[in-house]
C-alpha cells in the first residue's frame, strides 16, 4: 500500500496511533466514573484493580475494533473484482506474539488479583485464625490441620476476614446478620440490640457473621465493593472498615423468591459520637421487658436466637414455614 511517492512512513503512523491509544486508555481508566463512591477500605483496592483492567481493556478494544473498522473500509470488495485475495495462510511469529501478549497480561492480572484479594482480607477466614491460636472455639481442632487450603466441615467460615495488618486482632464490632425472605435482621451481641438496619461506626473494624434462615441470600454493600452469599447451613462472614459517614444501600443479590427485589435495607455509617448516641438510645429501648421490640419478632426469630448454638437445626422449620406463605 505504500507504493505512492510521498506517504507518511507506516512506522510513524503506528507510533502516533500507539501513543494516542495509550493516552486515551490511561485517561479513561482513571476517569470512567463507572463505580459508585468508595466507603470501605476495600473499595479503593477493588477500584484500582478494575481501573487497571479498564486501561488494558480500552487499549485492546481500541486496537482490535480499530483494526476491524479499518479492514472493513480499506479491504472492502470493489465492484467488478472477482479475483481472490493474496493467499496469506498465517504468520508463525505474529501468532506467537499475539498469544504471548495476552498470556502475559492475564498472568499479571492474576497475580495482581491475588494480591488485592489478600489485602481485602480474603485469605483470613476461620482456618487462618486457628493458626494464630486466636479464636477460642477453634482450639479444639488440631493446629495446622485446617489450613487455608482445605475446607473441613463447619470450621471454615467463607468470606472476607481480617487483612494482613489486622492479623490476629479481633474485630472492634461484631454483628450477627440473619437473612430471611425478604429482610435482614441485625443482632448486636455485645449490646443486645436487634435492628432492621445496620449501624456501624466509622473507622472501626466491623465483622458480620452471616447466616440464612431459609434460602440462599447474598449480602451486598455496593459502595463497600463487598458481597458474600448467605448460605443455610454454612457460616459466612464479611469484615470491613467504613471510611465515610452516610447512609448506603444493603442489597440482596441472590434470587431468594418473589420479592427478592424488595429485600433491601440500609447501612448507616456514624461518626463515633453519633454511633455512641444510637447505641445508648437503642440499648435503653430494647432493655429486657420492652415489649414493643419483642412483639415485632416472629417466632422463628426468637427461636433462632436460642437455637443459635445448636447450629442449623432451626433452618428446617423456617423453610417449612415459608412454603406456606
Amino acid at each position: 500500500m505504500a507504493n505512492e511517492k510521498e506517504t507518511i512512513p507506516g512506522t510513524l503512523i503506528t507510533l502516533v496511533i500507539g501513543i494516542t491509544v495509550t493516552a486515551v486508555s490511561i485517561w479513561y481508566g482513571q476517569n470512567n466514573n463507572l463505580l459508585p463512591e468508595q466507603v470501605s477500605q476495600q473499595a479503593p483496592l477493588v477500584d484500582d484493580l478494575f481501573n487497571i483492567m479498564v486501561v488494558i481493556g480500552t487499549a485492546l478494544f481500541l486496537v482490535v475494533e480499530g483494526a476491524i473498522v479499518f479492514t472493513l473500509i480499506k479491504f472492502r470488495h470493489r465492484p467488478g473484482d472477482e479475483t481472490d485475495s493474496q493467499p496469506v495462510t498465517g504468520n508463525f511469529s505474529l501468532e506467537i506474539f499475539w498469544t504471548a501478549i495476552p498470556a502475559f497480561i492475564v498472568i499479571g492480572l492474576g497475580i495482581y488479583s491475588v494480591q488485592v484479594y489478600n489485602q481485602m482480607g480474603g485469605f483470613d477466614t476461620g482456618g487462618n485464625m486457628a493458626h494464630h491460636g486466636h479464636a477460642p472455639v477453634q482450639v479444639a481442632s488440631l493446629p495446622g490441620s485446617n489450613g487455608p487450603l482445605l475446607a473441613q466441615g463447619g470450621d471454615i467460615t467463607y468470606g472476607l476476614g481480617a487483612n494482613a495488618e489486622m492479623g490476629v486482632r479481633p474485630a472492634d464490632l461484631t454483628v450477627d446478620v440473619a437473612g430471611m425472605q425478604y429482610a435482614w435482621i441485625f443482632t448486636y451481641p455485645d449490646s443486645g440490640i436487634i435492628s432492621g438496619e445496620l449501624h456501624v461506626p466509622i473507622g472501626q473494624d466491623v465483622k458480620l457473621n452471616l447466616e440464612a434462615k431459609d434460602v440462599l441470600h447474598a449480602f451486598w454493600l455496593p459502595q463497600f465493593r463487598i458481597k458474600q452469599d448467605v448460605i443455610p447451613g454454612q457460616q459466612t462472614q464479611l469484615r470491613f472498615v467504613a471510611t465515610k459517614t452516610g447512609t448506603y444501600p444493603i442489597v440482596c443479590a441472590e434470587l431468594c423468591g418473589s420479592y427478592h427485589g424488595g429485600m433491601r435495607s440500609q447501612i448507616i455509617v456514624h461518626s463515633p459520637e453519633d454511633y455512641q448516641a444510637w447505641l445508648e438510645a437503642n440499648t435503653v429501648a430494647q432493655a429486657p421487658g420492652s415489649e414493643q421490640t419483642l412483639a415485632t419478632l416472629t417466632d422463628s426469630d426468637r427461636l433462632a436466637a436460642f437455637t443459635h448454638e445448636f447450629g442449623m437445626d432451626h433452618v428446617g422449620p423456617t423453610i417449612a414455614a415459608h412454603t406456606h406463605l
Partner: protein
Amino acid sequence: MAQAQLPLQSPPPQEHTGHAHPEQWSWYHYFLYNTDHKVIGIQYLVTAFFFYLVAGVMALFMRAELATPDPDLLSPDVYNTLLTNHGTLMIFFWIVPAAIGGFGNYLVPLMIGAKDMAFPNLNAIAFWLNPISAVCLGISFLYGGAQAGWTSYPPLSIVTSPNGQSFWILSIALIGTSSILGALNFLVTIYKLKTPDMNWDELPLFCWAMVATSFLALFSTPVLAIGLIMLLFDINFGTGFFRPEMGGDVVVYQHLFWFYSHPAVYLMILPIFGVMSEIISTHARKPIFGYRAIAYSSLAICVVGLFVWVHHMFTSGTPPWMRMFFTISTLIVAVPTGVKIFGWVATLWGGKIRFTSPMLFAVGLLAMFVFGGLSGVTLGAAPFDLHVHDTYYVVAHFHYVLFGGSVFGLYAGIYHWFPKMTGRMYNETLGRIHFVLTFIGTNLTFLPMHSLGMQGMPRRVALYDPQFEFLNKVCTYGSILLGISVLPFLVNMIWSWSQGAPAGRNPWRSLTLEWQTSSPPAIENFDEEPIVWAGPYDYGIDTQSFEPDDPTVAEILAEVGQEMK
C-alpha cells in the same frame, strides 16, 4: 494445498431414476421421524427458532416490567417464572440445539463428504427428545412454572413451586440426554466417516469446533443430569442431598450445576466460532489466517473450559484457594479466545470483504465478542467479581457474548447456508436491515446494563431502586428495537424459502465440500464419492497456476458446476 485431482472424464451424473432415493423430501417429511441428517438439521433449526421467539417474547414482558421501578405489570411470581424460562429456553432450546443440532447435523456430514451421520436413528431420536422435553416444560407452566432461575439453586428450588420445578428438571434431563446422544454421534461421524482423501488438516474448522464441542458435552452433561436428579429426589422423594436441615450441602449443587453449565457456555460459542471461520474466509475470499492455531485453540478452550466453573461461585461458600485458582484458570481462557479473534481479524486484513448479510453478522459478532470478552476478563478477577457478581453487569456481559456472540453467529450461519438448505437466495436488503436493527438494538439494550450493575442493581429483580429508572428505560427501548428486528428476518426467510431466486449450487464460490453438491443436496448428499481437490480455505492459492495445464480453482468450480446440472 490444492491437489487438482478432478477426473475430467468422470462419468456423467446418474439420472434421478437410478437412485436408491429417487425423490427429494416433501414438506411433510420435515414434520415426521426422519433419519436424514439434513432433515434433522432443519428440524432442529426451525423448532429452535420457534423457542427463540417464545423466549424473546418473555424477555419483552420482563423489559416492560422493568421500565418502571415498581412491580406493576406482572406479579413477582410470574416475573420469576419468565426469567427462569427465558434463560432455559434461550440456552437449552435455542442456542444449543440450533448451533449443535441444527448446523452440526446439517453441515458435518456434508463437510466431510459423508452420506449421513454415523448413527442416523440415534440422531433422529436425539431430535425428537426436544419436543418431548418442550412438552415437559409446557406442563411445568400448568403448575406455575419453575421460578428459581435457570440455575435453580436449592433451597429456593426445593421450596418454590415444587411441581413446576420437577417438570422443569425432567425437561432439562431429557434435552441433556439429547445433547449427549448428539455429541457421541458427532465424534464417531467425524472420526469414521470423513472421506479418506481428506487429511485432518483439511478438515473444515467448523468440524474441529464440533469435535471440541462434542467432547465437552460428553464430559460435562452427565454431571448436570446427576445434580438435577438429586434435586428432583430432594423435592419429591424426601432425600436431603441439598437440604441443610438434613445435613445436605447446598453448595455441592452449585458445583455440579456449574461443572456442566460453564462448559455449556462453550457449547454455545464453539460451534459459532466454527461458523465464523467458514464465513469470514469465504466472504473475504482469503485463506483462514492460522488454520492450526484456530483449530487447536478450540481444543484448548475445551480443556481449560472444564476447569473454570467456580468463577460462577466466587461469592458462594468458596474457600480462598479456590477463588484464586479459578481466577487464574478463568483468565487463561482469554488466551485461546484471543488467538481466534486475532486470527479472524488477520483473515479480514487484506481480504476482499463482501458486505453480505452473513458477513455483516459475522463482523458484528467479532466487534461485540471483543467487548464481551473484555468484560469477561474483569469478571474473572475474583476481587472485582465480589462486587459485580449477580448484578446487571453479569447480565450485560453474558448477553454480549451469547446474544452479540452466539445469536449473531446463528443469524450469520442461517444467511450463509440458506441457499444451500433451500436452494433459494434470501433477500440481501432485508438481511442488511435486519443486521442494522439487531446491532443497534443489542447495544442499546445491553450496554447500559454494565453501568446498572456496577452502580448497585442486582439481577433477577422485578422491582428496583428508582435511581436506576432512566437506564432501565433505555434498555427497554432497546429491547423493543430488538423485537422489531426479528420481523424483517422472518419475512425474508418465509418469503425467500418459497419465492426466492434460485441460488444454484455454490453462490458464494466456497471451497468446502457442502457447496460442491446440488442445492438443496440430494438425499444421500453426493451423487458420487466427493474428491477433495483443494483445502477448505485455499482462496487465491490456485489463481496463479504452477503449471499451465493445471486448472485454476475457478475452472474446477465451474467444471463441478457443469457436472451437477
